[in-house]
């Protein structure tokens, strides 16, 4: 029996054998984070649409008062975090699919992440400034 195994090749790298560890189980983090933010965005989107309808044509003072409600401020911040993170993950997949050249792909990814983060931070700071009466 033992001799029959000579043709079996082990599908594992030398480094993997030396370390004796399995997969880090972190490979699905991107996929999982996109689902977590998607689930969070289901109720947040419904709240946001209803809030916007209520704020149609509202005066500046009315918007500031609305944002000063702690519930609205917290939900707005939650929406901003979930939305921009979801957007970052989604746009990353799109760029990875369509931009082939490695340097160009890296540059596009970094530029996209910079823009998304700056937009998200701008939205959060604006919401906090109004909500905390700055």
């Amino acid at each position, binding site marked *: 029996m033992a001799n029959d195994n000579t043709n079996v090749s082990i599908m594992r790298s030398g480094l993997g054998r030396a370390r004796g560890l399995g997969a880090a189980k972190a490979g699905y983090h991107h996929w999982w984070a996109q*689902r977590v933010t*998607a*689930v969070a*965005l*289901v109720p947040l*989107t419904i709240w946001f*649409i209803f809030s916007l*309808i*209520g704020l*149609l*044509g509202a005066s*500046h*003072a009315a*918007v*500031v008062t609305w*944002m000063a409600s702690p519930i609205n401020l917290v939900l707005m911040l939650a929406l901003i975090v979930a*939305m*921009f993170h979801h*957007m970052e993950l*989604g*746009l990353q997949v*799109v760029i990875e699919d369509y931009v082939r050249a490695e340097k160009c792909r890296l540059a596009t990814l970094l530029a996209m992440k910079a823009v*998304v983060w700056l*937009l998200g931070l*701008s*939205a959060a*700071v*604006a*919401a906090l*400034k*109004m909500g905390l009466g*700055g």
Partner: protein
Amino acid sequence: MRDVREALMVARNSDGKPVRRPVSPHLDVYQWSLSMALSILHRASGIALAAGSLVLVWWLVAAARGAAPYAIVQGFLGSIFGWIVLFGWTVALWFHFCSGIRHLVWDAGKGFEKAEYTQSGWIVVIATGVLSVLTLILAVAVR
């Protein structure tokens, strides 16, 4: 005529040697189906919503800066063009919302039979239409 599947991609194997690999045919060889259209629209609406987030940031930042910048945003959003942009954004949002829930159901391992995903696809289309029109009606009613 060459088989479209022979369109070759040059890649490298694990030893670093250049190899030619077959590439799966591109979109234009397939007959259009509902599933295909919805899959493309899911991505397209996601990209559109990313662009639409600029309006949200503009609105929030202007409101935080004061009444004068806020009035400019409201002037734009209250115009006919503004309503068209907002309605387009609403349709994209409801579509991505419904289609996203369909994806979450698939992630749970359900709905992969042909009859099931055709049915859920039409539900997404109808729900998007109904929710978008309801949102528009509500918006006009409270305006």
